[in-house]
């Protein structure tokens, strides 16, 4: 890390709070508001209250950030980690000025270039070159600045021969490359990245991480990086912050931060409301939407390896389906993928109904430890899956060992606890 300028703070977050109102999300119509108002005036029940909504939550507030103090110095590559709902995305959104805080303030030195999603502001009808200018301008560059960087951007993006083709003909990988190339070559003093490297191939991911390290180390810019992928955090970051329940619970060394993050756990959550959770892709959650997920008959999602995990999901569709497939993507708590379940068909569905599906999952193959899964509902076969819904929520659970003859699960054993081999025969000679 460049220490030439001593420690010059470029971001100073003090007492930052962000409050969201529950139950009042979304725009109504004027007639509904007037109806509700008229009902209140007459002391009658509001005709527009959605039946079945938890009235305790309605009008209640939720602190996404609950007093965050943080100082980031020039040239640092700061990792931000935390469980879902810990407040990472909210913090980045306030930093990128997409939404305003409720309390507290952030002071910044320099411009912020944020990449909260790949290719934001890209227009499909326009060519790669036109989109570079457009995206540069959205991120705060002038035309002259883009001109000066154009060759570098095109070279880094590896899209040279397609640069005058409309981006709607690009593969998703090319899209990511181009978008990242623009953001990385911006003359902004602060660069904010949220999970953007999750897409794209490994080789390009490494190239991006390398570029980001340069940006921070050599060019003296400051990088804020959010990821669930601990290995990229290790590789890139010089310092790491752990957020939990809207507060900073650790700030300092990367390895220690990862250890602290591992300790934070979601296994006490057995009910998840997915209605307002963001989705993995832009189109997910539109044609089909998962609404809730519950771990059944449990107060915490801790299971013995002989026990079946019982889950109930509720979902709705916006169009008729003759069948939809569901699979679980299992990960260890440090986000290492463990495996997927074989897809199952949830059956036909028509709009207007609330579907409830109960299923069980057998964790007996998993070694002791904490895991989470993503739920992925898709159309078509696994090879040609069109994602219908995939909330970003990590459904955490813990597997404990019922077999007392087994010692504590050792770090080098991987994650899978296969059944014992079948001994066919043992013979003795001599």
């Amino acid at each position, binding site marked *: 890390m460049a220490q030439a*300028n001593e420690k*010059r*703070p470029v971001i*100073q977050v003090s007492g930052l709070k962000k409050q*969201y109102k529950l139950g009042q*999300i*979304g*725009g*109504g*119509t*004027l*007639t509904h*508001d007037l109806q509700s108002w008229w009902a209140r005036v007459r002391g009658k029940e509001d005709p527009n209250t959605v039946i079945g909504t938890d009235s305790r939550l309605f009008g209640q507030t939720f602190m996404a950030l609950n007093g965050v103090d943080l100082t980031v110095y*020039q040239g640092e590559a700061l990792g931000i980690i935390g469980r879902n709902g810990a407040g990472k995305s909210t913090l980045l*959104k*306030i*930093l*990128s*000025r*997409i*939404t*305003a*805080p*409720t*309390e*507290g*303030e*952030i*002071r*910044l*030195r*320099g*411009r*912020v270039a*944020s990449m*909260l*999603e790949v290719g*934001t*502001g890209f*227009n499909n*009808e*326009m060519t790669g070159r*036109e989109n570079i*200018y*457009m995206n540069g*301008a*959205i*991120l*705060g*560059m*002038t*035309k002259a600045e883009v001109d000066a960087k154009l060759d570098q951007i095109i070279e880094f993006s590896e899209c040279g021969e397609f640069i005058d083709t409309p981006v709607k003909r690009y593969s998703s990988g090319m899209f990511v490359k181009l978008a990242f190339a623009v953001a990385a070559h911006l*003359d*902004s*003093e602060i660069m904010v990245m949220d999970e953007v490297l999750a897409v794209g191939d490994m080789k390009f991911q490494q190239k991006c991480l390398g570029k980001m390290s340069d940006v921070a180390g050599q*060019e*003296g*810019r400051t990088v804020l990086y959010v990821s669930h992928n601990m290995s990229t955090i290790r590789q890139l970051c010089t310092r790491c912050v752990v957020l939990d329940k809207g507060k900073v619970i650790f700030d300092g060394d990367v390895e220690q931060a990862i250890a602290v993050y591992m300790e934070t756990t979601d296994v006490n959550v057995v009910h998840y409301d997915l209605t307002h959770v963001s989705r993995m892709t*832009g189109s997910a959650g539109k044609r089909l939407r998962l609404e809730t997920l519950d771990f059944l008959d449990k107060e915490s999602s801790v299971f013995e390896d002989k026990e079946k995990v019982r889950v109930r999901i509720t979902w709705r569709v916006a169009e008729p389906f003759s069948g939809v497939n569901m699979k679980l993507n299992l990960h260890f708590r440090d986000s290492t993928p463990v495996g997927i379940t074989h897809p199952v068909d949830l059956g036909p569905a028509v709009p207007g109904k609330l579907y409830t599906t109960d299923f069980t999952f057998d964790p007996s193959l998993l070694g002791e430890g904490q895991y989470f899964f993503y739920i992925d509902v898709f159309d078509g076969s696994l090879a040609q899956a069109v994602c219908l819904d995939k909330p970003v929520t990590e459904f955490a659970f813990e597997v404990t060992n019922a077999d007392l003859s087994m010692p504590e699960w050792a770090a080098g054993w991987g994650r899978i606890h296969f059944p014992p081999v079948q001994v066919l025969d043992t013979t003795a000679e001599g």
Partner: protein
Amino acid sequence: MADYRPQSPATPEEDWTTIIRPRTGWFDIDLAELWRYRDLTLMFVKRNFTVLYKQTVLGPAWIILNPLITTVLFNVVFGGLAGLSTDGSPSFLFYMAGNTVWTFFSSCINNTANTFVANSQVFGKVYFPRLTTPISQALTSLINFFIQFIMYALFWVGFALTGAEMHLTPWLIALPLVIVEVMLLGLGVGIIVSSLTTKYRDLAIAVGFGVQLWMYISPVVYPLSSLSESPRLRALMMLNPMTAPIEVFRMATLGTGTVSVGGLAYSVVFTLAALALGTILFSRIEKTFMDTV
């Protein structure tokens, strides 16, 4: 490369470039920043054209086809069938003048009215001054207006050559002011509507209809002078901020119309008020809009 000079002796309190705070104040628009993003505004203008006419057969020809067809229609329905007065000017030019100004105004409103809803995807992911979007829409309408104005000028020359009864007046000097005013009025009303549509989606539907109704209480298909018999209706018409611009436009180019400096001044004041109100509402909404979609 950014320039990192060693820290100046100034106290650290003074050299923060941006301070993000909870939404406060009523007029919280950073005009300097808006100016810094002028390249983006121009790029949005370019994009508006690209997107609108890609994969259409006639492409930008629609810019002149639209008003041409409307003018012919007005000419037949209001001039021919209904026999409305045109203050003695050639009816074709009379309707084209009214329609050109009105199309400009209504497209300013219609294209800015859904700013927040139409851009929620982008607004949710990246920051830039949100006002660049409606301003770029208004500028797009302005370019369309210029093209239609040139067409109007060509027809004007054609009619002049055949010796039609019309003449230019000194009000021509006021024309640039009137054009800017119409644009700002459309922008002002548009951003008021766009701010309110974030809460009340039905306004988005109402606005198209409302603008259509507004046309009929503006002197587009009839001259203000045709109301001279009923002073009350006429007084009511004078409250409409679009009355003066249309009449001035006709007075300047055709030499007929009912114009007064007072009427134009009222219209300008109304425009500035609408623009100020719109900007205030817009700046309030833009900071927390993303929490409510």
